[in-house]
């Protein structure tokens, strides 16, 4: 009887550990995680990429609505096809990368969650911070939970992967980035798309 109770306790403990929320680290050793941005103005359309992405997301495969976390993009990593344009972009006139070194999205909750297999689509609500201005935003996200796939990406490490994709628009005027100025070259609406993978290593 004691053995049976002991076994049941071990099984219960193991299953609770499996169902427990996992913390995914989005500092990518392969440097693939990226955020793209695009502006389409009358005189110019600009596309760029940022790759310095970090942050953590707590995800529970059994309870996706409880997902929380913060994703940070290093402002200095924003790249555009022209090096002079990159200097302008990061200068105090535009993003002021020295004063505001981080762009972040602090996710507080997921709404309208729909899960099919390993994929979850939802609306993520949280605080988006850019250029020293924080604004509450809700953006559509897609999460893909890749169980046991970490070793395929990082040899020698066992664990899971969580891929997050998001595409949304924001207005630079909302974040006090030259509001109402240079609209012929840089549109007010900035299209952002995020494709990042986080890893949760098994000890």
């Amino acid at each position, binding site marked *: 009887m004691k053995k049976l109770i002991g076994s049941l306790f071990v099984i219960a403990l193991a299953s609770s550990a499996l169902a427990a929320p996992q913390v995914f680290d989005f500092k990518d050793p*392969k*440097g*693939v*995680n*990226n955020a*793209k941005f695009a502006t389409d103005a009358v005189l*110019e*359309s600009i*596309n760029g*990429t940022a*790759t310095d992405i970090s942050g953590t997301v707590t995800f529970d495969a059994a309870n996706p609505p409880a997902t929380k976390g913060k994703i940070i993009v290093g402002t200095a990593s924003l*790249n*555009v*096809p*022209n*090096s002079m344009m990159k200097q302008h972009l990061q200068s105090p006139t535009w993003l002021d990368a020295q004063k505001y070194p981080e762009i972040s999205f602090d996710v507080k909750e997921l709404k309208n969650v729909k899960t099919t297999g390993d994929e979850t689509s939802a609306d993520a609500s949280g605080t988006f911070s850019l250029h020293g201005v924080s604004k509450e935003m809700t953006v559509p996200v897609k999460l*893909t939970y*890749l169980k046991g*796939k970490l070793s*395929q*990406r990082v040899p020698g490490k066992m664990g899971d*992967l969580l*891929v997050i994709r998001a595409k949304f628009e924001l207005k630079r005027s909302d974040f006090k980035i030259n509001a109402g100025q240079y609209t012929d070259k840089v549109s007010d609406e900035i299209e952002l798309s995020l*494709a*990042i*993978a986080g890893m949760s290593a098994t000890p």
Partner: protein
Amino acid sequence: MRKLLRILAALVLVGGVGFWLAAGANTGWTKNRVPKKFVDDVTGIEVERFEDKFVPGVDFLGGTAVGAVALAGLSFVFRGKKKELKT
């Protein structure tokens, strides 16, 4: 000298347009870095990494045209030899 400048102007124009066409006829501004796509096999994430490469744009084309016109215009400064009228 007139002839030389006009030939030079034509060469600058043809060479500039030819280079612009050969480099992909980019209708945007000149770029000195271009994105190259890379896909992560496991996650399917697509990333663009920038590589140093000069791609002339419409500003390069405009500069070439202005240069060619300036050279052609300069050729008018030099007078050609006047032909003596034979009576």
